[in-house]
């Protein structure tokens, strides 16, 4: 499954693959979201989780007042999806897991 296809899920605002250093490898987002910023945030949060909790292959679902950000480590980097808070997070999580197993760059 290609990373770019994640954006087709209803209420998904942006998705992408980012390296551990925060540089974006691939990504798509709606006009109001900057993929590079989302990627930087994803890398920062995952690195912090790995560092603080000493966890390998960490993943996270972060709920804010307006959005939900899903992050998952993969062999190629960190896959992230930003969606609206009323999105089907369960569905997004399943698709994210599929992508993270073998991410395909568009």
């Amino acid at each position, binding site marked *: 499954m290609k990373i770019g296809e994640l954006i087709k899920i209803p209420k998904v605002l942006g998705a992408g693959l980012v390296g551990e250093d925060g540089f974006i490898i691939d990504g798509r987002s709606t006009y109001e979201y900057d993929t590079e910023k989302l990627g930087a945030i994803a890398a920062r949060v995952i690195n912090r989780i790995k560092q603080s909790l000493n966890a390998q292959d*960490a993943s996270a679902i972060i709920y804010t007042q307006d959005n939900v950000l899903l992050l998952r480590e993969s062999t190629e980097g960190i896959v992230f999806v930003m969606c609206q808070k009323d999105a089907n997070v369960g569905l997004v999580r399943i698709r994210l897991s599929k992508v993270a197993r073998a991410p395909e760059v568009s």
Partner: protein
Amino acid sequence: MADELRVDSGALIFATLADVYISSGMIDEAISILNDGLARNPNYHLAKIMLGRAYYLKGECDKAIEILEPIYDVVKEDETANLCLSICYHKQGDHAQAMRFCEAVLRINPDNSEALKLLKEMTPERSPEPQVEVTAPEAPAPAAVVVEQPTIAVPLEAVVPAEPLPAGLQETVVETEAPVHEISELDIREIPEKTPEVESMPLAALDRPARRLLDLDSVKRVFISTKDGLLIKNYSKGDNDVEAMCASVAAICLDVDESFRMLKRGGLTRCIIEKPDETICVMAVGDSLLTVTTRIEAKPGLVFVYAHKIIEEIEEILR
């Protein structure tokens, strides 16, 4: 004041946490967080009342009075503020002022046991003078005083028979037969360590909702910490590294908060961190974090549903 709370939810958060600190006897921490919060919200009077109460509980009556007196006109209908001032003035030996505030407490809540106790203590204290003494507080007294003529205190044995009392005061004289020898004991006595407010919301009240979470098979541990990583309460037994976990969770949440601030998309409300061996669910409760660690097979949705109900309960307790 309730409106103020609703408007300034940020202020409510630090005051809530301070109340938790006070309830658990961490007075210095409460004073610190209240001073910090008041620096940002200088007009938040409820926090000032709490700060006054914290100083009074610490035994620093001067400071309590210094904080509460300037805002008294605004908070004169607050039971806690009046009770604190009454006890503080009583401790300082200013019985007229103590009586004035004690009356105000009883006007707001005629059943306030602390105020009734204080009034009982002060009544014989004010009776060593052998003449009828009617004192009026310098500041305007509350409009409707429930306890009538509480400042009139004349022991029967002290009244000189040649000076008959005014007819209207006869009943008061009969009521003030309490033995004068109690005064010395009262002076030595410390101010009550536990006010009814403190007793009514101990941190133990949080146990019940947290235990319900722990009752779930997949839940390994539950703890509440501050957003800066200090453990407030741990509900899991034999868990030694919970403080390290608090710090780690706080660090992650702080990073997330900062990151989303950059996006201007609101702060963290909850977070699920999936590790190979366990899942960590973190929920923001005011200025605190409720963390629930579950086994990997647990359904995070189920934990959130339970936790959401519990958060409401916790917020209600802290409120």
